[in-house]
């Protein structure tokens, strides 16, 4: 297994772990952290591929993803706060007024 493949596999495993985390955890903040993990897994792929192809594109992309993730984190936490104010909980199973 080449180094590239190893990194890509690691990335895939991280992505998988992140996905599983999203699926299995109930706390919205933890879920959000898992999503961050997924994003970082993708970042790892990008960096790996960028190195493989000898370009900077992928690495540039990673910066953007990180910036976006930061933005998402701030917005996300704010939303979680409003949810907490309305529901007094940030567990996903408590938030299901809307359904059907």
């Amino acid at each position: 297994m080449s180094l590239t493949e190893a990194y890509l596999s690691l990335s895939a495993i991280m992505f998988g772990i992140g996905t599983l985390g999203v699926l299995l955890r109930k706390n919205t903040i933890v879920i959000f952290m898992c999503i961050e993990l997924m994003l970082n897994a993708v970042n790892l792929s990008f960096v790996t591929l960028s190195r493989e192809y000898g370009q900077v594109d992928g690495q540039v992309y990673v910066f953007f993803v990180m910036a976006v993730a930061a933005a998402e984190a701030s917005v996300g936490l704010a939303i979680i706060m409003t949810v907490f104010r309305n529901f007094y909980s940030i567990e996903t199973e408590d938030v299901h007024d809307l359904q059907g």
Partner: protein
Amino acid sequence: MSEFTVFAAMPFILLLSVGFGMLCWDLFFKCDRLVWLLAAVFGAWGFAIPQYFVAETTMNDLVYLDGYSLFFYTLILFGTAATFVLNHRYLAKQNVRTSSDIDMLILLAACGGMVMVSAANLIVLFIGFELLSVSVYVLCGSARKERASSEGALKYFLFGAFSSAFLLYGMAMVYGACGTLSIPEIAESVTSATPMLLLGIGLLVFGFGFKVSLVPFHVWSPDVYQGAPVSITGFMAVVVKVAAFGSFLRVMSVCFGSIQADWAALLWTISIITMTVGNIVALRQTSIKRMLAYSSIAHAGYALIGFISMGDAGGVEATLFYMLSYSLMTVASFGAVIVVTSGSEAQYENDSIDSLHGLGWSHPFISLVLTVSLFSLAGIPPLAGFVGKFYLFKSAVTAGYTGLAIIAALNSVVSLYYYLRVVVVLYFKGERTLDWAPEKSIGAGPTIALATATVGTLAFGLFAEYCYPFIVVAVNGFS
């Protein structure tokens, strides 16, 4: 950077600068913002028009400045303008803060949508995508005191972030398979379907499918549509969906058009499932917002027909026209719902279809607008919705997917039922007996917006022929 490049960036610059300017607006001014907002939107459109006459991509191959972009700009900007006009009067009644940051977010979202549809690079596309998404997450939750609004925002945020991770991973796969992030270069490098590429496409479909709410990635949308303030729901149904479709379609046709045969089956299946699920679930809805949400899911399914039959069969053109007619009908239907439900003190409780009871006789104009748009959504000729469906059916049959056209036709029959049920409530149950009613006078702005959308629905049905050449040119730009 040539001078023209700056000029070409003007739409974005304008929207962003007015948007950020709005942040400070409340500090300095007390007068009405609407005029300035509309000026920004139409100014952006005005700056965008010249792009049509330049058949080259600019800004270092990052953004397409072609007819296709212009077409979607037009839809996005007009949708945004309609949102502003309709919001102006009613946001306060929807428990939404009326400060200028809402306007800023809308402008940013519109800008993000425009970036998305004109992106010539997956990085740019992602930035547009996120600009749009993040703004709309906030907009969804803008009625902070409403449980539903915050729940909608949470769901939208979690699912949005989740699916953008998949989108990103899909892009990484594509990058891995093609070695480039530039859309034209990807198009050149894609000749055959490698497993990595196909997996990438699959993940991209997830990401975009989330945004345009294709089954099974649609689960968030009914809840979010219902939870968000109704003005924002309208904005999402029009601008977000159209922008997502615009970039989805460009990616699928420009990047992966050459291996269409490999992914057509996937989208064929998703298309059928989407329209069927959207329609049959809409049958059982009592909330008008939720019903329209499912209806928009079903329409996403129809629009997907154009993806499957792209190329000589004219699927792309058909989808474009469908987006046009869909925007008009949706502006009209959501506009009417905004006007109606905002009349209620507790609009979150009064979004049921039954709350429209007898409006046909007490509020003829709104009801007419709603009726025409619903008939158009149902595909009754000669309205735009019919012509849109006709183009889709035509491209499906031409591409050899007659069965798909038949299933879509049967779905239209199902959809007719729930659209007509609204008309039943509007007209067939006698005079209004509820103890609240929307205002009699809805103001000039909303009237003009609704009337324009309604007349447009009719006009683009009867005179679609005069619009079609533009669409053809728009599509020729990238093929």
